[in-house]
């Protein structure tokens, strides 16, 4: 409180206000400065702190030389005329030069025009380098702060009054910004790709191999891999399989995809059937080429290739967040005519690796000539093995993985289940393959938003039955599920919920603000044409925004009274004013009220009000009760 009071009473000099602005606009840029330039900035700050007199021209010259040196060292190597054509490098150079020039001017401790406008240049430049949720918040904060500083400067350094006024102005402009943002025509180029490199943490994607031993992919992490926004609500839990890669080849300790994967691209895929569904995906950097789509994809994702196995890939591995919209038909199977190669790849097995399984599989094949029934029997067989699903399995015999899992350890997780299931299916004469991807957890979703986490990584089996590839959830055959201890210590239910809501908000902001585009705009308009209720809601929310703006403005524009009591009295005073009783220059409030009362002998209540007011203000009887009493009296008076 004491700090606030001193803050209220201190008047800031223009230079101090300018410094605050510079600190705020330079903060994000500092993150991208190279070490020599950072050192230069550090030197400048040190000089400003320890030397309180203006620098002489020799000093300024020295600073200039130092700045040029820092600039040279920072851009050494990257600096060539060819390099300049790259926009980012050019902008970096601009930032460096601006920093040096501003530092030179700032050290003279004189404010000139260029020093005043440079914060805006920094602000505009920083927009080239950063993009994302954080920057959005920061930009709004920066704009407000700059406004605040300008107004405080105009108000002679009074930052408290400056804050109120800047709040008013900010609120005046907010509805305009919203309306302009939504309706301003966006006929522009593609969204540029340079810039923001904040998200460099690598997500564990699937790399087209699946290990069964200690290299196995097992990441019980909460990190978000992708965020999915459905058009309507999230589809049922049992359909949330996101396909990644497909594995055909059993290499004892791991599975691999087809080496000739590329060949399959040329072959067209057959149209999938099922409940059509549309959704938006934000995929975080995986450093891999796979895109993930719900079973079964029905359309090519833009800029990617969808092959006959319904696997989507991009040309270059994904190094920054990727947004795509996808279409799928919700179904557990899809039609495909197997070519020889695929048939071969999905039927190969080594019987001597898993002799025990082979014997059992042969038995099944003989007992169930019908392929569909055989697959069912396979499932039953797995169930009969009393398998345990656990994230902490015992080590398997690498040379006999399926035998060892099915008959010895009987403990494992998705990879073990899927791998064994596929092996045994092949042994039983059913073409089969492993699909890896994500099985999203329905519980994580909120409304139409579904985040997919690293721990949702999954592997399942696909069996070729009667011209269809059919999904088999191998882990569903587990008889026991061992509780995962690791999950227990993770955050409580409530914080999870809050976290989920935060993620949801972030996702919505990103889709509707950061990735708002011409297409979105058209979509919105199209949608509005057909949905009058949506238009009504939209208009209502705009009105709500206006009202909110109005409330905030009137809050900050409210006149200031020296005491709470006097503020309470305003209702009464306004009424008297309305009745054309104006308070004269030399009148005290008491005299004014008495003059009124004299003319209105019936309104005796005013004497009580006057007396109570006098007691509160002058006799130090300022208690809550008295304040309340005064309020009640005034209300009563106004009603009369």
């Amino acid at each position, binding site marked *: 409180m004491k700090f606030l009071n001193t803050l209220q009473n201190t008047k800031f000099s223009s230079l101090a206000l300018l410094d605050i602005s510079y600190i705020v606009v330079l903060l994000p840029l500092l993150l991208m400065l190279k070490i020599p330039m950072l050192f230069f900035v550090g030197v400048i700050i040190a000089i400003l702190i320890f030397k309180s007199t203006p620098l002489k021209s020799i000093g300024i010259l020295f600073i200039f030389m130092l700045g040029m040196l820092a600039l040279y060292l920072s851009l050494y190597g990257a600096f060539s005329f060819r390099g300049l054509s790259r926009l980012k490098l050019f902008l970096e150079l601009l930032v460096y030069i601006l920093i040096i020039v501003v530092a030179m001017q700032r050290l003279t401790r004189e404010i000139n025009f260029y020093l005043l406008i440079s914060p805006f240049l920094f602000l505009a430049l920083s927009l080239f380098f950063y993009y994302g949720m954080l920057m959005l918040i920061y930009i709004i904060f920066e704009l407000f702060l700059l406004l605040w500083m300008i107004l405080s400067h105009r108000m002679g350094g009074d930052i408290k009054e400056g804050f109120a006024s800047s709040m008013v102005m900010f609120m005046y402009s907010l509805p305009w910004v919203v309306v302009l943002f939504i309706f301003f025509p966006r006929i522009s180029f593609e969204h540029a790709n340079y810039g923001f490199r904040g998200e460099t943490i690598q997500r564990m994607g699937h790399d087209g191999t699946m290990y069964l031993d200690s290299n196995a992919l097992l990441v019980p992490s909460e990190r978000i891999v992708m965020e999915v926004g459905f058009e309507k609500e999230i589809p049922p839990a049992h359909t949330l399989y996101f396909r990644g890669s497909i594995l055909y080849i059993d290499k004892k300790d791991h599975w691999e995809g087809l080496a000739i994967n590329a060949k399959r691209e040329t072959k067209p895929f057959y149209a999938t059937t099922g409940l059509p569904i549309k959704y938006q995906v934000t995929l975080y950097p995986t450093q891999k080429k796979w895109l993930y789509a719900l079973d079964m994809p029905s359309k090519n994702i833009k800029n990617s290739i969808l092959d006959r196995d319904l696997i989507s890939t991009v040309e270059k591995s994904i190094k920054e967040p990727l947004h795509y919209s996808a279409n799928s038909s919700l179904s557990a199977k899809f039609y495909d005519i197997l070519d020889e190669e695929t048939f071969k790849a999905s039927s190969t097995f080594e019987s001597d690796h898993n002799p025990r399984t082979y014997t059992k599989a042969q038995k099944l094949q003989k007992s169930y000539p019908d392929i569909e029934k055989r697959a069912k029997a396979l499932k039953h067989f797995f169930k009969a093995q009393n398998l345990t699903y656990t994230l902490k399995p015992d080590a398997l015999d690498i040379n006999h993985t399926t035998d060892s899992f099915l008959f010895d350890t009987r403990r494992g997780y998705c990879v073990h289940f899927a791998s064994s299931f596929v092996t045994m299916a092949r042994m039983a004469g059913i073409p089969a393959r492993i699909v890896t991807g994500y099985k999203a957890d329905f519980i994580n979703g909120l409304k139409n938003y579904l985040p997919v986490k690293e721990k949702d990584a999954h592997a399942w089996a696909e069996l070729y039955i009667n011209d269809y590839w059919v999904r088999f959830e191998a882990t569903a055959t587990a008889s026991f599920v061992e509780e995962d201890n690791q999950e227990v210590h993770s955050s409580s239910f409530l914080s999870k919920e809050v976290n989920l809501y935060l993620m949801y908000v972030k996702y919505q902001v990103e889709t509707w603000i950061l990735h708002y585009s011409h297409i979105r705009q058209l979509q919105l308009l199209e949608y509005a044409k057909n949905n009058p209720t949506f238009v009504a809601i939209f208009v209502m929310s705009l009105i709500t925004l206006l009202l909110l703006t109005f409330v905030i403005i009137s809050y900050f524009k409210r006149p200031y009274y020296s005491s709470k009591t006097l503020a309470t009295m305003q209702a009464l005073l306004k009424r008297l004013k309305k009745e054309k009783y104006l308070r004269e220059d030399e009148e*005290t409030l008491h005299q004014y009220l008495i003059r009124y009362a004299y003319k209105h002998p019936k309104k005796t209540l005013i004497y009580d009000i006057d007396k109570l007011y006098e007691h509160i203000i002058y*006799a*130090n009887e300022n208690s809550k009760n008295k304040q309340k009493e005064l309020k009640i009296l005034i209300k009563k008076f106004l009603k009369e």
Partner: protein
Amino acid sequence: MNYTISPDFTPIIDAIETHLVGKRETIALSLATFFAGGHLLLEDIPGVGKTTLAKALSQALGLDFGRIQFTSDMLPSDILGVNYYNQKEGDFVFKKGPIFTSFLLADEINRSMPKTQSALLQAMEEGIITIDQISYTLKKPFFVMATQNPYEEVGTFLLPSSQLDRFMCSFSIGYPDKDAERAILKGGSKEQLVKTQAMLDTKQIESFMQKASSVTLSDTLLDFLQAIIAFTRESGLFEYGLSTRGALALTAMVKSWAMLQGRTYATADDLQMVTGIVCAHRLHFKEGTTTMLRISHEIFSKIHSDT
């Protein structure tokens, strides 16, 4: 009229008013000055009742009354007293001057020489006089009501502002209004008036003075008071601003005036009421004439209470 005198004091005022018809406010203000522990300077032309007021007031308060008529040849010893040689006892004996009284009327104080004036004024301030290194304490309460002729009168010595500062208030009684004057004219001459009965004793006076000094000044009022003081110093209207002694006098008067109305707290109205009389002899406009009304008008049209 923005005040109501407490029933404790109305009989006193009533009694004095029989001598000084139509001057209730003047009487009340004089009482307030007395209870505030200050001294009063009356500036008036002769014959409007300065002496009558003093006499009636002293009688009503039950104080012993002393009077000094100042003349140009008066010396300090004429007021304070002298050491004279008593031949019978063979020693110097102090003969008390007229100042050793509770209620002193210093009539036409500006007729005497500055030296004599200052002797009285110093005694007023300190309550002690020292003659030949021996200190004598004055009576308590000690109240001086000085009168001063308007400046145009010839052969007078203006009181310097440092001396004026020692009076808490100054005002003039002025002519009575029409009705009051008519009543006076009907009523006849002074001799017919009976002596006023003493209405308070020393204890009561002391308790009232005690009450006056313990009147509450709220923060709001102090803010207002300080704004007024700052205005006198910073507005550039006056030659000098209000001194700290002047500010103290103002607070004391505000408290006393509030007490006179039977309140235990002072309000902005009280301050408005007394500011003029406290400041009239302390402030001087740089240009034009200085009057009580002009001062309070200038101040209160610019400094507002309750805002």
